Each structure stands twice: as C-alpha cells, then as structure tokens.
C-alpha cells in the first residue's frame, strides 16, 4: 500500500482535507473525493484545459498538478463562481451570449476567463483569444465565448 499524504486546502472558500497517494492528480481529488465534477478531463497531454481551476491566484490545469503540491492552497473551481445565489458576471455572460453548447469546456473556460479578467480587466479581442489559448472548445468556434468575456469585462468594470 503506497504511502498516503494528508493534504488540507481551501476549496471555494471552505476548508477541505484529503488523504492521497503522491501520484494522485488534483483533478481526480476534486472530482472523485471532493465531489466537484465541474472541472473535466478531455485529454492526458495537458492540452485541452477542460480541467482548469484557479489556484493561489493562477489559472492552472489541475490534471498536471499533484494534490500533494496543494497543501495550504486557496482554490476556486466553477462551483465557487456563484456567490450567495448570484451568478458571476462571466456565468451570466456565457448564458446571454450563447458561449456554450455541450458545456464540457465551459467550467474550465469560465474559470480561466475569471483569472484573465483579473490579469487584464479591459482586454481586446486579441487579448481574449490569446488569453484562452489554453482552453479548447469543439462546439462554439470561440466567437461567442469571446463576446461573453467582453460582455463580462464591461459589466465588471461598470460595477467597480
């Protein structure tokens, strides 16, 4: 039996704990142990971005992080975007601009866009396209995703 490590971190504002083997990837801990099936698996070569979470202020592909590396981390997933029953501006914008179809890339995409808008609150279309280059989508052709991010950026700026 391989050694297990006890790892504690904050997930969407709440403290969580998991006992994991060193080799357990964060995506599996989130999905299988902690019941957060929002982030998805779309590949095994770190290309697709469907597993993207927000970790200590960074957009990170949770399929390429070991859970043991996350001791003390502050983590947000798609499940943490809605606060007190109110959707995040990005979630609302994706809905209004039809920025999703099958929904599989959506959690990773929104989570990445969340950090993107913190890095750059007023991104150009090119900035957005480059900013989501780590998130693949097969359904939308990205056009409405870009519109959604632009719309959310405007709303967030107005609210400030």
């Amino acid at each position, binding site marked *: *039996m391989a050694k297990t490590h006890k790892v504690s971190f904050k997930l969407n504002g709440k403290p969580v704990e998991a006992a994991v*083997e060193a*080799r*357990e990837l964060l995506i*599996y801990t989130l*999905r*299988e142990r902690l019941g*957060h*099936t*929002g*982030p*998805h*698996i*779309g*590949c*095994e*070569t770190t*290309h*697709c971005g*469907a597993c993207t979470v927000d970790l200590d202020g960074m957009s990170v592909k949770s399929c390429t992080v070991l859970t043991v590396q996350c001791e003390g981390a502050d983590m947000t*997933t*798609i*499940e943490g*975007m*809605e606060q007190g029953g109110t*959707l995040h501006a990005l*979630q609302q914008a*994706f*809905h*209004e601009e*039809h920025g*999703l*179809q*099958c*929904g*599989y*890339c*959506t*959690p990773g995409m*929104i989570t990445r866009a969340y950090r993107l808008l913190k890095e750059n609150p007023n991104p150009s279309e090119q900035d*957005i*396209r*480059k900013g*989501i*280059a*780590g*998130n*693949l*989508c*097969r*359904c*939308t*052709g*990205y*056009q*409405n*995703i*870009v519109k959604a991010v632009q719309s959310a950026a405007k709303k967030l700026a107005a609210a400030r």
Partner: protein
Amino acid sequence: MAETAELKEREQKLQGMGTSLLRKEDARFIRGQGTYIDDIKMPGMLFGAIVRSPYAHARIKGIDKAKALACPGVVAVLTAADLKPVKLDWMPTVGGDVQAVLAGEKVHFQYQEVAMVLATDRAAAYDGAALVEVDYEELPAIVDPKKALLKDAPVLREDIVDKKDLTHGPRTHPNHIFTWEAGNKAAADAAFKGAEVTVREEILNPRVHPCPLETCGCVASFNKATGYLTLYVTTQIPHLFRTVLAMLSGIPESKIRVVGGDIGGGFGNKVPIYPGYVVATVASIVTGVPVKWIESRIDNISTTGFARDYHCVGELAADRDGRIKGLRFTALADHGAFNSHVSATKLPAGLFSICTGSYAIPNTYCRVDAVFTNKAPGGVAYRCSLRVTEAIYLIERMMDVLAQKVGVDKAEIRRRNFVKAEQFPYTTGFGWTLDSGNYHAALDKVLKAVDYEGLRREQAAKRADPKSPTLMGIGISTFTEIVGAGPTKVCDILGVGLFDSCEIRVHPTGGVIARLGTMTQGQGHSTTYAQIIATELGLPASDIVVEEGDTDKAPYGAGTWGSRSTPVSGAATAVAARKIKDKAKKIAAHLLEVAEGDLEWEIDRFKVKGNPSQFKTMKELCLVSHTGNLPAGMEQGLNAVAYYDPPNLTFPFGAYLCVLDIDKFTGEAKVRRFYALDDCGTRINPMIIDGQIHGGLTEAFAVAMGQQIPFDENGNHLGNSLMDYFLPTAVETPAWETDHTVTPCPHHPLGAKGVAESPHVGGIPCFSNAVIDAFSHLGVTHMDMPHSAYRVWQKCNALGLNKR
C-alpha cells in the same frame, strides 16, 4: 395600434419559434453541474482499463494475466476467451460484418482492444493494465488502401475469408468489402466521349477524427436479482443501442435501459457501439456490480469512429462554356479493419450519391469500392451526414477544376449549372428529390456582401506584383446538403426505420413535458423543441420541459446524427402538438357552445370568428381538459405522441466564401474573411443556428487546414494525441460572418430543414478551394488536404515562389 401591441406582447411571452431564446440547458452547465458519464458514481463500482495492441497486424500467441491479477486492487482480467462462452468475443456490426470485441487470435489495428482489467479504483486498473503480458507475432500490415486489393496482399480478415458477401454484394478479394454504384455508367461514358471538355482529378479526403472534447465511456450496471441491465453511456442513439444490446446479449429489450445523459460533444463519434461498452457490460453481468470504462484521448483518436479516408477520382464532362454534360465520381474507401460504421441497409456508401450537389447534371455515375486495412474501423462520422462531406467536397472541388479548365469565373460556372429556383422540387440524376432552394439568390447575396468583383481585382493586382509576399486565394462553396434520415422506404439500420418521435403531456396548470427519441450533445434541444411547442400550443417556452436520452421514458427514435433532429423529431413535435391543439379546439368549441369551424386560433387562444370577446386560452383549456366538462365521449387530458416517418430527406443549402492570404515563405495561410450564408428553411432559434454555424465552420477549418491521422508503413500512429492532432485554439480560429436566406421545406410541418452539419459540409471545400485558388494562376488545379503550412510550403517551393 393597441391591438397589435397586445398581440406582440402575447407572442413575446411565448418565446416561440423565430426567437433567439436563451438556452434552458445552460443553467446547469455554467455552474459545472452537468452530469457527464465520468461524473457518475455507483456503489461498488469497478473501473475497467483496456489493454491495447502495440501492433497494427499480429497474431496473439498468448496472454499472461498473472502479474496483473496479483496487482493490488485488480479483481479480474477479461480476454476474448472469457467472452467466447457468451458468444460476445465477436459482435455483428450494422454494416453486415463482425467486429472483435476483444482480439482473440489476431489483432487488426494498432491500439485494438485485447483485454480489460477490472479493479476497485482507476489507478489500480491502469497499474494492472500495464502488467498484462501479451505475446505477439507481428505480421505485415496494409496501410495504403490501394495495396489492399493487390493479388499478393496479405489477407487481413481471416475470420471471414470464406464469406463471399457481407450483405452488400459479392466480394472480389479477401480484403474487399463491397462495391456500390449508382447512376448510369453507359450514359455517363457516352457523355464523356462526346464532350468538348473533360476534367479529371485525383482527390483525397484524408482520414480525420471528430475528437469531441469528452471521450467515450460508459457505466454498465447489471442487477443479478432482477436481470435488469442499465447502461449509462456516451451515445447519440440510445434506442438503437438498446435494440442492438438486446440482440447481442440475449437480455430482453424490456429489461434494458440505456441512458444518454449530458454528452460533451458527439459529432458522430458517439454513434458506434464500441468494444469497450460491450466488455464493460459483460463485466458487470459477470461480477454483478457496476463497471465504469472511460477511454483516454489517445484511445479516442486511435480507435473510435474516424471519418473520411476516401480516395476519389472526380471527372466532369462539359461544353466549352462550362455547362456540365456528364459526371463520373469514384472512390476507394478505406474502412479500416472492420466494416462497422453506421450504415443504412441499402446504402453502404451512405448518401454519397448527393454528389451532384447544387447542380443540374445529366448522365451521372458514381461508384465506391470499400476495402479493409490495418487501421481502426469506421468512416462515417464527423458532421458528415453519411458520406456527404466526401460527396460535396468532390463536386465543389471539381467545379473549381472545371472553371479553371474552361477559363470561366468560379462563381459564374456555378450559376451556369445551378438547379434553377423554378425547377424545385428537383430530382437529381441519382434520384434524390431536392425539396426547395434558390441557389442563385444565395450566391448573389454573398457575392454582393463581400464585393466579389473587388476581391478579384485585388487578387489580380497582387498576382501582377512579383514583390507581393503573399498569395491571395478566394474560395467559393455552394453546397446542398442532404439530412434528416430518413424515410423508411429509403433507409433503415438493421431493419429498424429511421423515423422519430415526440410525446407531449400537458399538465392541468399549463406546464408541458415533452420527450423525444433524439439525443442532444450540445445542440440546444431543450430550448429548440420547447420553442416549437410554445408556438404550436400557445404556452410559454419557459414552462415546457424537454427530455431525451432515457430509453425507459422516451419514445423510440433513431437518435441525433446527420442533422436529423429538426427534420424528423421536430416534425414529430409539430404533429403531436397539432393533435393536442385539435383536441383543445374541440373542447373550446364545446365550452363556447359553437361549432369548431366558428373558431380561429390566435397566438395562445381560440377565438370565435366575428366575436373576439369570446375566447378560450390554451392555458384555460389545460385545466378544463382534466375535468368532466368535455364533449361527449372524449377522454380526459391533452396528451399526444407522434411517430414521424418523413416523406423525404431535407436539403439545406448555402453559399460560403473565404478569402485567405498565404505566406509564400512559410506556407502559412491566414483567413482574412469567411462569409457563410445558410438556408435551413424555417429558422427556429437564430442564436442557436449561428452557434452551430460557428462550430461547424471551426471544425471545417480544422479539417481543411491541419487535421489528419497519419500512419507509418507498419500501421503505427504518428500523431494521435492533441500534441499533433490539430484542434485550433481561439487564436487560430477565424471570425465568422453569418447570413441567411429562408426557403422553407415544403414537406416539413414547420418548413424546417436542419442545419448543424451544413457548415462542416460546405466549409471544408470552401477553405480548400481558397487555398488552391491562390495558386490557380500558376496552373495548379488541386492540392490535397490538410493544407498545413508544411504542405502548402512544399507547393510554394516546387513553384519557386519563395526565391528571393
């Protein structure tokens, strides 16, 4: 005035057909609360990992499970020997062939399934799979389909070597599957003999893969006590899957439940019944606990239903003005190791004979020869409407080839050959009756929007400038699609017709639940079908719930593929709704004490003609229908189910134009503009249509500009992960301009045709035509896809365009 405003308000409340209603399904997806296959956990569930062959062609000398079985967490290792007693080591395919579920004596393609390791958790299953030892004896592989029918070619399918016929006609060689032809060869040959101009081109449609973001998988759960099998699975065809499972397993169909939940993209990749599903099912039957199998991305690209691999020869005969007098299209089809792709019984090459496209072409002949090779099985997939991508690619490429030969503009040559608006419905030489269309209007609208003449002038100027670092290409594609499979008289799968269904129940307080036999994988069915019912019944879409995918609940249907949902289930929805409306009208007449003929329908109510203050809203009638206050002899309720057998397929069409600039020194092509006009008849939700166009064009862009499944000469994959398989990011993907015309379908209750595959079918030749057009002034008539920078550069280099 007030009257019109009131009518408008009532109409808007419905959010019915024609509105860009925001999607009802979004609520769970934007919160990460979809239920995709890998989200499903069941008590006691085992995890299955598949052991796969490293060789494309080899004999299996032996399988040693000992080390794997000794691995902690591993519960069992299943091989063909374990499936043989239940006769499931092989399974019949819908193409009249058989397919190995787990390889027994031979493997026929690299990554083919050889064993499944069952373990208590995912990691243990992978560990176990790495420990299964298989002894292979490698055999020479056939990778090039042109070599499959050579006299001394190795025999691939020893298991069917004595079968002279796989239900599609006589086999001429052990590696031959079928030869299918249509049209009139003698007439076509005569037309070519007497023609002023003929053109011939060898055109490849390379093997590609739909690669939805979610891979395939299932959770199989067999209850030993009740004998009931539940299969949660990534499937586009829940009911057909259930029927086939019943045939395969011997479990009565009434005790099988197939559930398609939320699916992360299908694009045809989730139509086939894969060995992984069958082994997981057997594993659950044997162990009595649920078994989950989820494939990896590399597994997905390497083994699940690929698309195309059509090696074509296109020939057109014409007069010197470019008016086509004859057509001969043939294709060598590489089906991989088993003939397993979705196949309508009498149409082994799908709808390839739509290859006359948007044109009135006499004297037509086409033939497809299909062969086995040492590659994964498949061929029909990827937004292709059953080989329609192959057919339309061929005709749209050949139109450009002909245009160049006779020196006629590429838009003009299309105009000269189009089926004219007044000729509809038009029956092609191959027997398809195109339902409606106005091809001239569509093309003219596009050319005007982009200032086509201006673009050609710009191109001419650039060509005259030797210093121009780029080549400018203009690609046109005027395509006609064939979707909405289909009439039972035309096609069936294993004898089961491709009708579809809608069952509607209306609640006393006015809400509605509708269940259908189609299966969304992101196309917005919950919203679109609700809009149809909203308009038909005058009840708000917000109060209409749509369900699909659970075979225990949904009426029988053939699922969602080939853009068939709107044409078939959309029609069934209208028919069912109208049955309810007819009944409601009778109740209204009874309540208002008038004859039915005295009533007229207005948005959400029945009004007495000439006495508008006398009316009954549908909402009121919902409640009344559940009471005793009904016409004599009438049953309670407002419910209906309709099974719709379409009288014909539907024929959406479009005109696309692409402008791109090719860097002579690197071969990179940059899309400057892409204008897409689509005509799908009646447009139910314009926002959803546009979304489908964006997505289909993006997939077309990927196919045309970079996708391929390459092999070395031993059948080893050379690029089967997302490192190499080209899925464009937001940076590469062009911006899309969409436009439309509306030519309703005359035989569809709503006039709607379906649209989601059009952008893929029409987009691929548009990109390809643009790239080749960039070189056409130098005598280039054709270049095979993918038009990667590398391949395009090779052309630039060969023509000396990159000399400084």
